[in-house]
């Protein structure tokens, strides 16, 4: 089922949480709402669910206006950030809840409920925990139970609020791959909220980058990473080095390299740390600097290079490259950017 979001605005006191948000979620896709805390992503998710009422705008489910529909009737599955499992009920009863509270006429029989719940527990691979209470589960298990509970009512849309936010790095990585696989099997239209760009890039079909109650960019992971629409998106999706330059006939120049630039005068040239070449030999126009720190980060190595009259530049090298060149702290080096994204004072 597709979701159309039209001109949603939401204000908390003087704080504008959502400012005229419009967005289409395609049927069957897995969409990420990505942004820093306070950007409005959770509020938007709660508006879609009907847990929050928008001040203006419309929500359409499959072309039908659902703005006035109560959360009870929206048929959405919602996974809460802290899971909100009913702590006095067993795992089985938690998952069965949505079926048991149905009016008598549409309530499945006990046997049917039992069958459905076990089916779902099988799906999340936790059938052996049916008689436990939420307090007896690990974080990752609770997360999966919360998902099974949301799926039990056969929702047309699945909404997840920071689904992996409260988990350890290891469990987190496992679970997000598992969620991706689950989505590929079920094809239920899903929206999830995250502040972790890596998570969004890995899991989502499309990413909506949000900032200060507005959408900065909508696109596939490749699109938002390779051609960020704004300096904010660029910065949010990874580490950056910033160079100041001027636009001349459609080009901005940094260290002898020319990069296509939009219309404008002053240019901000953003370069990712792994897109900078480092040499010992003086190259024409290259930026001269001195290595101040070297940090080994597993597979990659990060060097901090101090540059006169500017902020220090970060350079990321793969381990092998680093070992071949034997870089040392204090050495004089020359920097050349290989790739860059240019924003001018007009495009910001």
């Amino acid at each position: 089922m597709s979701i159309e979001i039209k001109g949603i605005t939401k204000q908390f006191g003087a704080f504008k949480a959502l400012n005229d948000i419009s967005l289409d979620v395609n049927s069957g896709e897995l969409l990420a709402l990505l942004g820093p805390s306070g950007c409005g992503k959770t509020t938007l998710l709660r508006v879609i669910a009907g847990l929050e009422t928008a001040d203006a705008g419309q929500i359409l489910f499959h072309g039908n206006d659902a703005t006035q529909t109560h959360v009870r009737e929206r048929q959405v599955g919602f996974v809460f950030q802290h899971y909100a499992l009913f702590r006095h009920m067993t795992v089985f009863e938690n998952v069965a809840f949505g079926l048991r509270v149905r009016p008598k006429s549409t309530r499945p029989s006990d046997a049917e409920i039992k069958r459905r719940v076990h089916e779902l527990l099988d799906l999340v691979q936790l059938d052996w925990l049916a008689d436990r209470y939420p307090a007896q589960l690990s974080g990752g298990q609770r997360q999966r139970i919360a998902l099974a509970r949301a799926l039990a009512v056969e929702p047309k849309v699945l909404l997840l609020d920071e689904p992996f936010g409260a988990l350890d790095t290891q469990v987190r990585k496992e679970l997000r791959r598992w969620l991706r696989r689950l989505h590929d099997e079920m094809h239920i239209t899903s929206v999830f909220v995250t502040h972790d760009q890596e998570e969004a890039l890995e899991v989502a079909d499309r990413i909506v980058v949000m900032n200060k109650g507005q959408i900065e960019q909508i696109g596939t992971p490749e699109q938002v990473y390779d051609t960020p629409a704004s300096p904010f998106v660029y910065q949010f999706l990874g580490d950056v080095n910033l160079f100041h330059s001027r636009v001349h006939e459609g080009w901005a120049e940094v260290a002898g390299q020319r990069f296509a630039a939009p219309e404008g005068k002053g240019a901000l040239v953003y370069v990712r740390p792994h897109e900078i070449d480092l040499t010992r030999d003086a190259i024409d126009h290259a930026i001269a600097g001195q290595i101040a720190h070297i940090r080994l980060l597993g597979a990659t190595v990060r060097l901090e290079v101090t540059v006169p009259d500017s902020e220090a530049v970060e350079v990321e090298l793969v381990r092998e490259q680093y070992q071949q060149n034997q870089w040392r702290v204090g050495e004089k080096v020359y920097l050349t950017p290989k790739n860059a994204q240019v924003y001018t004072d007009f495009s910001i």
Partner: protein
Amino acid sequence: MAFKKPSVLPGFNLSLGYTIFYLGLIVLVPLSALIFKTAGLSWADFWQTVSNPRVVASYRLTFGASLIAAGINMLFGLLVAWVLVRYSFPGKRLIDAMVDLPFALPTAVAGIALATLYAPNGWIGQWLEPLGLKVAFTPLGVVLALTFISLPFVVRTVQPVLEDMEIELEEAASSLGATRWQIFAKVIFPTVWPALLTGFTLAFARAIGEFGSVVFIAGNMPMVSEITPLLIIAKLEQFDYLGATAIALVMLVASFVLLLVINLLQWWTAKRLGRR
């Protein structure tokens, strides 16, 4: 801003409506009756009633004895709370539960028990009598009864603060060279102080209104051991409704002031402990 933030949860109008209706019916309307009734008195009459020497003597006893009782409890309450939180000894759970006895034991029962114990021929009174110490039927008895009924307040407000206090604070102070006594005076006591003061005020507020436990042991001699609540009842029994109401209003105003102080103290405690 609107009166209420929107929420998906149902039942706001019903629950708030019922709350206000019931509150009005049981508490607010009856209390306002007291204020309107007093308005029937001229200022001169009112002043004469509430400043009559016998009434003033009762204030002095009620507030004085309450202050002493709350003070005793501040000292011993802190000590009991400290012992219950920091030390372990056999029967600790039982003692901990016992602290709430004054909340659970009806005041009249406490009153007759204390009166019997401290009477000149009672278990404890017979030992005090030769020392020239008369407790029953004197102001001292009033202090005793008030100490009993307000005993749990300080313990129960200080205890959670002591429990939540990080041991790291003391370890830090110790690593910086403080002695045990300095740690208590400069780290522990300032942390506990707002709660201690709140407990003191709660105990005091409870003590000034107390009636049941006091009447049996006080002897109720006018000018000497007669507390203000008893005086209200005495006026009522003489069908002096206006007199009773006037004195009750003085008591009520004192309660309101104390309630305000308690709220301020709790706000201060919350701020001190950094709870938002």
